């Protein structure tokens, strides 16, 4: 896949980092502002996809497998389910219960387990969408060459 013009490449280089940081902000403030895990994960994946679209897959030398993003996605889901199962052992011994201490409403470090869930779900969603995109791009490469 060919890349795009020089203007788009320069602007993407400047913007991709900002988009990535914005996605992390949405994830971390998921219990205070709208957004949360899923929306932040999609924004993070959007930063990576913007880079791939602007520079073209031939220049980025994408590998023939999606092992990196696929492994990240599976690891994040495992952490979510293990976190849910840990609540079976600690605290009130019920599945998916909020067992970490809850602070004051409105603080960043509050609401128990929810920021952790947001973080893992965000990483998982970013990995999943990136895997889908990479699989489709690499499939196009393999079939056309």
């Amino acid at each position, binding site marked *: 896949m060919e890349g795009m013009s020089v203007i788009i490449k320069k602007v993407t280089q400047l913007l991709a980092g900002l988009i990535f940081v914005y996605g992390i902000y949405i994830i971390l403030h998921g219990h*205070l502002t709208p957004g949360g895990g899923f929306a932040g994960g999609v924004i993070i994946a959007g930063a990576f996809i913007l880079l791939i679209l602007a520079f073209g897959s031939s220049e980025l030398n994408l590998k023939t497998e999606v092992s990196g993003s696929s492994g990240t996605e599976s690891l994040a889901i495992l952490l979510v389910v293990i976190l849910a199962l840990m609540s079976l052992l600690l605290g009130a011994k019920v599945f998916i219960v909020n067992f970490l201490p809850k602070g004051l*409403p409105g603080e960043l470090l509050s609401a128990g387990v929810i920021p952790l869930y947001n973080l893992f779900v965000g990483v998982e*969603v970013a990995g999943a969408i990136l895997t889908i995109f990479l699989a489709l791009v690499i499939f196009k490469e393999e079939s056309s060459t």
Partner: protein
Amino acid sequence: MTAYILTFILFLVGLYGVITRRNLIKIAISLSIMEFSIFLLLVLIGFIDGGSAPIVDPEKAGTLYVDPLPQAMVLTAIVIGLATTAMLMAIAIRLYRKYKTFDIREIKNLRG
């Protein structure tokens, strides 16, 4: 009341697209239109007149909030819609490689 009727009309537009379009990608897009119309209907169901966004502000206590449950439902359903659209597009691309066309009138190997 008109808002509900408009979302239902959008649902029927999507349904018309699924039935009459011949291109695989257009069928997938029409299915997405149907999904989004139902999400709009779900969020509309939870609307209360004069309510604000359901985020608790510790200073202003006791304000009227709209119903947050349909909004949680729609968030989950958006993720499901994404997965479904991704599956449809992956199969459509592979079908193009095999049959060299997106037209559903050409893709009829299975009969009877």
